[in-house]
């Protein structure tokens, strides 16, 4: 069973509330959901929509064809009517003209009835959200009573939790005992800052908004040097500004973790949409040669795990860790019945100022920590930095998941992808003779990737950028060129049914 519900309207009309209430109710009822959020760069008005996808098995994507469209305005109908399935159903807000501020709850009630879920399930969700719930429950019932059962969802035993990628970044950071998050607002990274700022006192951490990304990155290095577990986060433009500080990380070896949430560029691009076009800068930003980790989780659970790994590795190897996500990962809401892996805990045991004389520099330094121009020390330092590559790669290979294989493990048809695109790929190949190699560590790269590529008869690269950035990286590392490439770069993520069609055409 797979259902898709589109909820559309103007910014400010509360479409997120509808999808939130309905997905929570579905989650408590044992169903997996995936909520895609499509919104414009404006505060009020315009056209925003969510696609809430529902299934009794794990899903991490949305589809193109809608079973139900909930339209809070006329534009939603005009824009999306052609996406409605033949037997699809439309609910418009006009049917509930006098509902006022509880309209979204009424619409949730209507949806719950259509899905065939008992009203009490929705009532329980409302009670958990509102202190004074009487009025809301009346509104929910009004919506519920206005519709007929169309589907009959039976209660399932799955224990579901729902998380956005941004929430997952915050959870991963908190699990690792993050002390400081220092950032400058930039979509789609900002929600991670909001999440960490929300309960900062109770969480015993601090979220500090700096005057720019340049300041944020340099402050983060200063704070980390002082012995705080520190992280910064931004999107592509801000990451560009951080470039020099990343390079300072390389030479000073002050641990630093950066959360990079991509959106389409170059320039300001399409700021509230998605792209995987910043793998290149994550791998290369910052002048000079220095080691780093680039880790790309594909869903919320992986984001919790990989954020903790990033912080752990930055401290262990005194390096730069980059958590590479994008708008689709940050702002989509993932459901899961799996618990994240155990957090790799760590304490800061290096020398810090305040305890003993501790120096770090943007220059090459001698053993006293002071600057030097000596050729022999320079060469020695360069070698020491490069030596971290192999050492850390071995460690990561032994301790953390660098890749994942999904689908039919014996298939000769190999799909390769990474990051938020993984969800659509996993769902697309469910009934195909194909396996999906998900790259989680883009740096260092697992040696397993070459072996998998050599075993395959067909390889298809799936990415959301125009040049196939992971494909180019794999070619650089393995010498194997992937001929079949499915690349999408219009700011919108792949739908799983759309992707399935493309993959079938190739196979």
């Amino acid at each position: 069973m797979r259902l898709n519900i589109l909820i559309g309207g103007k910014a400010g009309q509360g479409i997120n509330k509808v999808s939130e209430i309905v997905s929570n109710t579905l989650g408590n009822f044992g169903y997996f959901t995936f909520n895609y959020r499509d919104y414009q760069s404006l505060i009020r008005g315009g056209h925003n929509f969510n696609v809430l996808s529902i299934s009794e098995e794990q899903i991490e994507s949305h589809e193109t064809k809608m079973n139900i469209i909930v339209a809070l305005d006329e534009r939603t109908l005009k824009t999306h009517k052609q996406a409605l399935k033949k037997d699809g159903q439309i609910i418009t807000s006009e049917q509930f003209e006098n509902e006022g501020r509880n309209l979204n709850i009424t619409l949730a009630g209507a949806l719950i009835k259509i899905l065939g879920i008992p009203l009490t399930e929705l009532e329980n969700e409302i009670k958990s959200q509102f202190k004074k719930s009487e009025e809301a429950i009346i509104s929910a019932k009004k919506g519920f009573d206005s519709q007929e059962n169309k589907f009959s969802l039976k209660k399932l035993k799955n224990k579901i939790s729902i998380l956005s990628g941004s929430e997952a970044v915050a959870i991963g950071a908190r699990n690792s005992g993050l002390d400081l998050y220092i950032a400058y607002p930039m979509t789609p990274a900002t929600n991670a800052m909001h999440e960490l700022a929300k309960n900062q006192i109770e969480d015993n951490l601090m979220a500090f908004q700096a005057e720019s990304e340049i300041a944020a990155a340099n402050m983060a290095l200063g704070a980390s040097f002082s012995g705080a577990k520190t992280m910064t986060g931004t999107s592509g433009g801000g990451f560009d500004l951080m470039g020099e500080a990343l390079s300072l990380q390389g030479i000073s070896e002050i641990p630093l973790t950066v959360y990079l949430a991509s959106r389409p560029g170059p320039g300001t691009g399409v700021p509230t949409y998605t792209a995987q076009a910043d793998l290149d800068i994550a791998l290369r930003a910052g002048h000079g040669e220095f080691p780093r980790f680039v880790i790309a989780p594909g869903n919320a659970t992986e984001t919790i795990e990989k954020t903790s790994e990033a912080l752990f590795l930055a401290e262990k190897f005194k390096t730069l860790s980059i958590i590479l996500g994008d708008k689709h990962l940050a702002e989509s809401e993932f459901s899961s019945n799996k618990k994240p892996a155990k957090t790799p805990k760590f304490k800061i045991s290096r020398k810090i100022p305040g305890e003993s004389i501790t120096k770090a520099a943007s220059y090459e330094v001698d053993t006293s920590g002071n600057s030097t121009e000596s050729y022999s020390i320079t060469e020695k330092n360069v070698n020491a930095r490069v030596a971290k590559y192999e050492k850390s790669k071995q460690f990561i290979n032994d301790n953390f998941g660098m890749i994942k294989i999904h689908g039919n493990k014996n298939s000769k048809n190999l799909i390769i992808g990474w990051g938020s695109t993984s969800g659509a790929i996993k769902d697309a190949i469910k009934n195909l003779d194909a396996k999906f190699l998900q790259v989680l560590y883009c740096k260092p790269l697992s040696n397993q990737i070459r072996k998998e590529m050599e075993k395959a008869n067909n390889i298809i690269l799936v990415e959301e950028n125009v040049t196939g950035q992971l494909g180019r990286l794999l070619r650089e590392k393995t010498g194997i060129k992937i001929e079949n490439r499915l690349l999408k770069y219009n700011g919108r993520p792949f739908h799983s049914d759309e992707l399935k069609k493309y993959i079938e055409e190739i196979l």
Partner: protein
Amino acid sequence: MNPNDLSTKSENTWCPGCPNHMILASVKQTISDLITKQNKTVHQRSGLTSTSEAVNQRSGLTKEDFAITTDIGCHAKIFDYLNLSGIYCLHGRALPTGIGMKLGNPNLKLLTFVGDGAMYAEGMEHFVHAFKYNTDMTLILHDNQSFSLTTGQPTPTTQTGYVSKASPLGTFDKPFNPLKLALAANATFIARVSARDMKHMQEVFTKAIQHKGFSFVEVIQDCLIFNLESNTKDSRMYKIKDNKDKSIAEKLTNEYDYNTKDGKIPMGIIYQSAEPTLEEKWPQLNKLIKSKSYWKNK
């Protein structure tokens, strides 16, 4: 404490006679005096009262309690010559890196050293915001009105008409008046000293370090190689009394415009006021200060 305890083995590569040597000596003297004085106080107090109280008092100040950040340029070489914790930062970024160090450990006594080029050109955004945050730290700005280490290009405080390899037509612009800017940005401590007056430097550095909040000290530091025509200021300098009146401060900051060759140059503490510090405003940092602890021990 002997100021030489703050020395390092690094070769000093400032030009012979450069006023930077005097700034270095003054900083060493200031810090070692502060440590000696504080430890004496603690010692005396512990002698007079119960021992448990003395234990509760931090057992004095040590050089480990101090930390520095330096920018890039001639001034920044001070990093190599001071046996203190710190970061030799990127050009223009010594201030945010220093603020970050304070966020990471608000108990550090932090001094940030910058040049006029670094701070007012590349790092101007940080300069203005530092007054807004009012972090409890000290900014020591070596102003020689020139990018000297890169062979004498004009900086934002270089006088109009200055001819260099980068400005063969002469600098067209009027210089900034950074003290006026600082005052407008709600600075809580603004001072000006001359690198040739070590006694005065030590007095002002001491007060700057003791100030609760962000203290900004401009050090007039003539370069002996580049922009020599700006080295005519000594005869125009006069000492002022420590000032806490904003309208007087406005007048004082207007007296010297970094450009004309006449007019007086007021020296000393031009403005001081009390405002909540960044460390007081943020409950998380306040807690660390009260418990004399840092994040690492949380």
